[in-house]
């Protein structure tokens, strides 16, 4: 049973020392409207620590899990086990996952996410220690936003902001307040893309910088230091 993971909590949180709660074994950080929330998936504890730190230092909120299965459970997509304790709709703005994992690979996780009507719009980035072109192509064809060759660096993580669903970093102060007030969604069909539609419906003078990312033509500037071929077109913004 898929759960609609949509509404962010409106609580004010201390962004420098976010308190972590444990729900069903996950370290869950309270959601905040200012910082984008990344779900990181890696079976290696060392890599989880590093990616978590890379993301936090780049002003992301992070939830790190150790398997594709856990990731699906967190999203509410796992058929076999759905959490009875609701996650209260913690919105995920990007998923970054290792490719080589026991059980479910990053590629299989990517497929499951892209097959889901609720979550297919979440950008997925694959990490791998192997720079294999066929692997890269396969992932991009399946809808991955990018493919990062490990070890992951700060420059790689900073690039992730290009794939974000939210326009938080571009918005002005006044738009922030408007967005906050109208973000308690009451739409009949909430979906992940609703955050951008709600900001456009908030009569702001500033147009949203990024439309919900579709699987065919995601809009992102060509990273200059991307280790892989860029198959996508450079959009106008």
């Amino acid at each position, binding site marked *: 049973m898929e759960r609609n993971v949509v509404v962010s909590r409106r609580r004010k949180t201390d962004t420098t020392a976010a308190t972590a709660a444990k729900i069903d074994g996950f370290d869950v950080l309270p959601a905040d409207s200012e910082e984008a929330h990344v779900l990181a998936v890696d079976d290696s504890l*060392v890599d989880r620590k*590093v990616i978590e730190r890379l993301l936090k230092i780049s002003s992301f909120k992070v939830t790190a899990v150790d398997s594709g299965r856990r990731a699906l459970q967190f999203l509410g997509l796992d058929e076999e086990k759905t959490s009875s304790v609701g996650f209260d709709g913690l919105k995920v703005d990007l998923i970054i996952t290792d490719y*080589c994992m026991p059980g479910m690979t990053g590629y299989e996780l990517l497929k499951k996410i892209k097959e889901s009507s609720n979550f297919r719009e979440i950008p997925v980035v694959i990490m791998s*220690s192997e720079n294999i072109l066929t692997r890269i192509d396969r992932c991009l064809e399946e809808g991955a936003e990018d493919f990062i060759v490990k070890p992951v660096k700060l420059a790689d993580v900073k690039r992730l902001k290009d794939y974000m669903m939210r326009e938080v970093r571009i918005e002005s102060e006044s738009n922030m307040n408007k967005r906050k007030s109208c973000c308690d969604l009451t739409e009949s069909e909430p979906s992940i893309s609703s955050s951008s539609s709600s900001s456009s419906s908030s009569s702001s003078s500033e147009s949203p910088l990024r439309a919900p990312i579709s699987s065919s033509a995601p809009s992102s500037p060509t990273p200059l230091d991307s280790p892989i071929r860029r198959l996508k077109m450079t959009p106008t913004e």
Partner: protein
Amino acid sequence: MLGLGVDRLRADMNRLLALLFHQGVLDEQFLQLQQLQDESSPNFVSEVVNIYFHESEKLLRNLRGLLMDKEFSDYKKIGIHLNQFMGSSSSIGAKRVRNVCVAFRAASEQNNRAGCLRALELLEHEYCYLKNKLHELFHIEQQRVLAAGVRYPMQH
């Protein structure tokens, strides 16, 4: 002369780091880890490295256990352990350890047991050297922090 102590310790640290880079023991990924350390996460590098040590020693024990077994034949399992070891080594910048893993993996893909045993010994040796050097590095860093603290007790 606490002031001189801090500077000398910093010089010692830099010299040791330069040596480890020169020897190819560490690569720029280690510097990347250092960049992730700040006031909000002041022990980040040693925390990650300690996790790495803990996991690596488990992997090394598993590898030795597998290869010493008279009836050993599970090269695939060796490969899995090595991939893990390679990945974490690369993530902390342990270049030489990672390179030995690559050679080790090649031997295991050829089902070459003698080659695997040789590679394992080399791996244990490289890992030992790395661990000793990193402990030395953290020790100097600890001393530097203490010396700096004594010198400027009212700082921040």
